[in-house]
């Protein structure tokens, strides 16, 4: 399967869509015994209303830290050092803790990778759903219970009234994630952050959950930040994509531009390293050689340079800015791309890139 088969034609979105969330220069660090680790070091991106942003990158590049930072749920020793998180016109970092709590689970909610352990084992799922309705909607127990059953039905849980009394350990991973989604959507939020919502599930369930998210997005005009390792999923649902590498943004742009006209060698590498769907004999995948650096031992200059086939001398010395590339397709952090010296539009370009240059 190719990317074009996965990506159905969808309306063009862009700067015209209303910005719901604008993240500017977000920097989050953790104080560890070995010093300060910048888990997220200056990220810029935005999410428009009713759109899905795919957030991709190798393990440890700061995807979860980014998403938890948006909800201001980074716990000590972590700290948001700098940046602006403009949500619906207001900077979340300037809100007091009460105002922030009013947004959480209400206008911005989140679901996680491990649905079963994300539910409290000692309360029934109904109770956990009612809790959020009682909190943000001031519903009484009885009304909250009825609404909880409705929500469970909406996310496709069979026999919802009976399931209200079930405890999390009795649910399959897929069912638990549906409960999490019901809980996240209970107050009809504007933004849903889904941190690898399908990674822990089997393949069939993964598809169902992604379908459900897409359905809910359409129904509520919801914006979603979808964090995933699965570029196939991103190809199918995302409107825009942010690629991260070692705590920094590598490339950000509309999904079509990222898939067909990317400008960053790392994006190219990621695209070439996945097989969108089933394995086809004769087609070679080109995983990116090497491993991501440890955040406390980042190489100087562009953090990707030890693995990059296009690295130039300047890449070792100076950190590339995150700016619009001359072609105007995406925003990227790469010296040659910003200078207009790279053409990565062809699949496999990364693997054969060194020879082409």
């Amino acid at each position, binding site marked *: 399967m190719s990317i074009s088969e996965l990506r159905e034609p969808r309306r063009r979105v862009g700067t015209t869509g209303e910005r719901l969330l604008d993240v500017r220069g977000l920097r989050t660090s953790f104080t560890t015994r070995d010093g300060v680790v910048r888990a997220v070091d200056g990220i810029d991106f935005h999410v428009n209303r009713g759109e899905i942003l795919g957030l991709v990158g190798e393990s440890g590049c700061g995807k979860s830290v980014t998403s*938890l930072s948006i*909800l201001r*749920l980074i716990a000590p020793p972590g700290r948001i050092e700098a940046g602006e998180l403009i949500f619906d016109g207001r900077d979340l970092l300037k809100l007091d803790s009460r105002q922030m*709590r*009013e*947004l*959480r*689970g*209400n206008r911005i*909610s*989140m679901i*996680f990778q*491990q649905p079963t*352990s*994300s*539910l*409290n*084992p*000692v309360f*029934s799922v109904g109770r956990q759903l009612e*809790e*959020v309705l009682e*909190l*943000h909607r001031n519903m009484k127990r009885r009304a909250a219970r009825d609404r909880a059953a409705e929500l469970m039905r909406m996310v496709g849980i069979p026999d919802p009234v009976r399931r209200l009394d079930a*405890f999390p*350990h*009795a649910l399959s991973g897929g069912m638990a994630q549906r409960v*999490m989604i019901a*809980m996240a959507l209970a107050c009809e939020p504007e933004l849903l952050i889904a941190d690898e919502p399908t990674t822990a599930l089997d393949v069939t369930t993964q598809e169902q959950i992604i379908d459900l998210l897409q359905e809910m997005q359409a129904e509520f005009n919801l914006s979603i930040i979808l964090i995933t390792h699965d570029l196939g999923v991103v190809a199918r649902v995302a409107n825009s994509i942010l690629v991260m590498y070692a705590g920094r943004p590598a490339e950000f742009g509309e999904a079509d531009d990222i898939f067909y006209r990317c400008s960053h060698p790392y994006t190219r590498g990621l695209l070439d390293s996945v097989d969108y769907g089933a394995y086809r004999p004769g087609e070679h995948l080109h995983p990116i050689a090497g491993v991501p650096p440890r955040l406390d031992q980042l190489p100087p200059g562009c953090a990707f340079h030890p693995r990059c086939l296009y690295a130039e001398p300047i890449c070792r010395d100076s950190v590339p800015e995150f700016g619009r590339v001359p072609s105007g397709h995406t925003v990227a952090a790469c010296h040659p791309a910003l200078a207009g010296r790279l053409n990565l539009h062809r699949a496999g370009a990364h693997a054969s890139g060194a020879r082409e240059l």
Partner: protein
Amino acid sequence: MLRFVLRRLLLAIPVLFGIIFVVFALARLIPGDPCRAQLGERATAAVCNDFIHRFGLDQPIPVQFGIYVGQLAHGDLGTSLKFGRPVTDLIIERLPVTVELTLVALLFATVLGILLGVVSASRRNSAVDVVTMFGANIGVSIPVFVLGLVLAWFFAVVLRGTPFALPPSGRLSSGISEIPLTEVWGLTGMQGPLRVLADFVSHMTIFNALLTGQWGPLGDALRHMILPAVALGTIPLAIIARMTRSSLLDVMGLDYIRTARAKGLTERLVVLRHGLRNALLPVVTIIGLQLGGLLSGAVLTETIFNLSGVGRTVTEAITGRDYVVIQGLTIVIAVGYLLINLIVDVSYAYLDPRIRLS
């Protein structure tokens, strides 16, 4: 839930029989003839023949076991030689003292321990936390009798004459007495198990005063209970505080706590509703285990603070080679352990649906 309790009760029955059998067997294993073991070395042959016949000791062992169980079923634990009274009476009179001491000590240890644990965990590495954990580490290592003597010396000797002085011995000051609830409620004519229960409760000074509204004696009884309860409860208090703290800290790092925060709950609700209930699971187990330790601590505490409870009775029975009393108390204490384990299991099941429903 009810089914769970019933199942646990059924499971306890074979254990109970096992205990009775062991106690029975031990009594037969005592060297020498059973008559002189029980009546003393100076019993004459005639007395012994009569004794052996009367208690069925000439019958085959299985029959004897049957007789023994039958006696137990009627609440007959034999007659103490040393005290010259039925063991059952002795227990009804003295067990309440121990139960009351243990309950008060446990209440003190649990409530304060969980409170300190929660405060320490939610202000990790703060001054409160450091001081509490330092105190807890000292607390676990002070032997009951040392703490008991120090407390008695400090509050009864050093502070004598000040409003902070506390009585170091007995259950009530001389000159103060309580009317047992059996009299207050006119139950003196009653017979049977309910009467036993009423007598039992009326021997718990604090409960008796509370139930019958004798406020003067209640205050006095409470003041007498403070030092022994603190002496006995300090080790469990320290253990419960440490356990609550570490368990809560573990729990607070789990995924569902992150979910609770992402819902927009206040930190207080996140800790108390979502964190504490899960964190208490291991604490409940620890409390159950501590109860065993409390009983042995009660022996020392009762001796130091001059309380005539089961602990002291056991000591007296052992030094006086009063086998009947030892047997009776062994069974009562074992049943106590069974009950405590049942309560621990039930609270565990109440807290954790995974156990309740499996």
